[in-house]
């Protein structure tokens, strides 16, 4: 049985006036059913673009230029547009960053759900769609009696619950959550994450969690992929990654976050800024900022190498092979 999701050599570029922005370059990973992948990295490292490309919704002028995205063995990049539309929402769906604006302000909560149910199954009756909505709202911790409210009558946390409900209503195989709690305060964030966890257990969800909050990833994810400049620097099981980061960038990322258990370790930011993706640095794209840079780094691009449970793209580990 093939893995639920298998992404191979995925390359996405934005064709701008300044040139081609290589947002995602040759990304490989696969995801088993029921697993949660945390996708972390700085802003503009390509993690959202990667999420959107799985739904084939990369906003123009972006285009998927190469690679394949297999969902249960079917390459989504070869699926006709109409079939792709049906896959969205029913097989793969997405939760967005800003719940305040992700619901249509003119539509009642009821209509959001009824529309979703009826789009994917025209034979479903309105009454049935409504009764399913009420049940769903109850399970989200929103009273079913709020079904006739408009989005503006809901708080940010409640709207995000609604959004999660919409994304999960048709029990999709894969849910992509693009920074689902970034715009919420910590208490609501904890509640929303708790809800996501519950629903994940209940429906055996496969989840891709895109975030720059490595704390959330530690809590939620089985696997972590660290992205830098459109590539996966390191990918592996969460405990291994956090316990013993191999890639200097992963190390830097972990050290730049506050650590409650070891407050004596002060935060150390990674110097420099992410590279310009129109003309990225030669060789390893991280080399201008890397504390462990040595001869091969600016010359050759590192290839992903297996290190125990992990894949890491760094020349430091080349030598082990030789």
């Amino acid at each position: 049985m093939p893995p639920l999701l298998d992404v191979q050599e995925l390359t996405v570029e934005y064709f701008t006036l300044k040139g081609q922005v290589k947002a995602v370059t040759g990304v490989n990973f696969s995801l088993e059913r029921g697993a949660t992948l945390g996708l972390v990295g700085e802003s503009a490292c390509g993690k959202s673009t990667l999420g959107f490309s799985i739904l084939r919704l990369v906003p123009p002028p972006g285009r998927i230029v190469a690679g394949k995205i297999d969902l249960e063995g079917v390459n989504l990049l070869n699926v006709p547009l109409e079939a792709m539309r049906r896959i969205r929402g029913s097989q793969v769906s997405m939760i967005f960053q800003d719940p305040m604006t992700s619901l249509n302000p003119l539509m009642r909560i009821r209509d959001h759900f009824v529309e979703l149910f009826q789009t994917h199954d025209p034979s479903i009756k309105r009454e049935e769609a409504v009764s399913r909505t009420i049940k769903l709202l109850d399970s989200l911790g929103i009273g079913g009696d709020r079904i006739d409210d408009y989005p503006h009558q809901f708080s940010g946390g409640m709207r995000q619950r609604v959004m999660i409900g919409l994304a999960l209503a048709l029990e999709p195989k894969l849910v992509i959550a693009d920074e689902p709690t970034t715009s919420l305060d910590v208490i609501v964030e904890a509640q929303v994450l708790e809800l996501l966890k519950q629903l994940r257990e209940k429906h055996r969800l496969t989840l891709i969690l895109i975030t720059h909050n490595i704390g959330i990833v530690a809590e939620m994810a089985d696997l972590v992929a660290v992205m830098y400049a459109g590539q996966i620097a390191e990918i592996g099981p969460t405990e291994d990654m956090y316990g013993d980061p191999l890639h200097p960038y992963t190390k830097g990322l972990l050290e730049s976050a506050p650590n409650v258990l070891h407050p004596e370790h002060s935060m150390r930011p990674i110097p420099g800024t992410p590279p310009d993706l129109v003309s990225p640095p030669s060789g390893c794209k991280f080399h201008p900022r890397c504390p462990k840079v040595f001869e091969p780094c600016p010359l050759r691009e590192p290839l992903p190498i297996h290190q125990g449970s992990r894949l890491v793209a760094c020349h430091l580990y080349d030598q082990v092979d030789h």
Partner: protein
Amino acid sequence: MKSLSGIPARLLLRKGPKGAEVYLAIAGAVLLVVVVTLTFLAPYIAPYNPIVEIGPALQPPSSQYPMGTDHLGRDVYSRVLYGAIVALEVSAISVLLSSTVGTVLGLFSGYSGGKMDRVFSMVMDSVYAFPGLILAIAIAAMMGPGLVNMSIAIAVVYIPTYFRMIRGQVLQTREQLYVEAARALGAKNSTILFRYIFANIIPSLVVVLSLNVADAILTEAGMSYLGLGIPPPTPDWGFDLSKGKSYLPGGYWWMITFPGIMILIVVLGFSLLGEGLNEILNPRLRER
């Protein structure tokens, strides 16, 4: 009343704009209902036949002639009542025509983008580049006078206004996260275009529509003033206005004043209704 740290109490107590929009809309609607009713009642309540001489010329308002008589001895009051028919017909036809064409083209052009959008935008911009009245006059002159022709001429001039407004709003709205979210949940293109994009544009459309009706009446009056509208002796506010102007220096103020006031009332009615509807149609503003 106590004041709060030096801020006068009356400022603190002042009510916000809540509810004001409703009164605006109602005021506008009432004005329009009155005018529309008058058009229907004109044959029954007009004291005289508006197109025949019924007394001495240029009589000031009196109990016999409530708004005086014009230079041909016709009753101004009767002409004002009948004149509403032309004004409302022309503005209704032209605005309906231009808003339908402009909105449909704007929606598809903005949503599909690409080459089609370029071509439509260029065509619309070139129409827009003409001074509106001059273009309407040219079209009307080409097609000849008459109510329908004049309405079409005015409609052509206004199509780009709708097109540009709708297209701009589509470009803005389609970037909204709720459009992206709907797409990510598998919504159909038609659903996105109408329920998510167009529905959110309607408030702007209603405002432009109501202001445009007002503008169309003024353009109609302007064209009739130049003799391109309805052929005389049909009562027409614009035409009467133009005639009245030449008699104003002689002190015969009533010929120009009463049709002018009617134009003002109708324009005001539509403007108030438009402003009010804009606020009412938006569920977020509705609860403020």
